[in-house]
């Protein structure tokens, strides 16, 4: 596979805006208004331990 010409714009878009989010320290926002801060990874792990397994 030949290497793509890598502009900084592509690097930033690929790495900062895309890709799977694994440790989601997240600010929930709607219409550019920041609403609430949530650490989703901790939330998911906690739910996984509290809720009964199907």
């Amino acid at each position, binding site marked *: 596979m030949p290497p793509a010409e890598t502009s900084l714009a592509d690097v930033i878009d690929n*790495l900062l805006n895309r890709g799977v*989010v694994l440790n*989601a320290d997240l600010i929930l926002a709607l219409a550019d208004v920041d609403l609430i801060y949530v650490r989703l990874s901790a939330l998911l792990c906690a739910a996984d331990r509290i809720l009964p397994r199907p």
Partner: protein
Amino acid sequence: MTRTVYVFALTGHAIPSFALKRRRVEFLDLRGFHAAVERTSQAPPVSEPSLRTQHDIVTRLFNRIDAVVPARFGALIDEHELRDILEARRPAIQDALALVRGRVQMTVRFPETPESIPRTSRSVPSGLTGTAYLEARRIASRTMPALAGVVATAVANLTIAERTEPQTERAGAVLYHLIARGNVARYKDVVSSLNSAAVSVSGPWPPFAFAPDLWP
């Protein structure tokens, strides 16, 4: 004792560990897929050199492994927490790996074209309820140019999946296409044949835009 890892990507299989620019990449076996990680206690700084290094590492993985789902920059996480998250989201990850196997991402950027946004959709009327105001503001700030439809139609027979990033008040619209690894030249030829100097095509990239959303 907490053991943290920095995650570069989830992969369909493992390859021998390697080092690139003093970052050592190894693989965690997650029963059916792997995580390409560096054992470290610190996330890299947000700087151009570290961003380019991570991009190079993901690209190397992508060139050697047929199914790679890149992680977003900054994925420093406790190893046990990572295993819990990935176990809880196993079906979504396996679906994503199946989708990207043997495929690449092409990125098509469009210039910012304020004139293409209908004036009526750019203004938000007053006197709305809070919910209606926020929804109107969201719609007013995001749109896809007509040219994106032309490009999407032209490459439709090569496209396996598509993501769009509509134009905002700050940046032009972007189309992301997932195509077979062997179709890169044909894809570029088709877009070039449209004779639109305003359209910028780049790739092949690892499928950053086709990562699953693990946080519904």
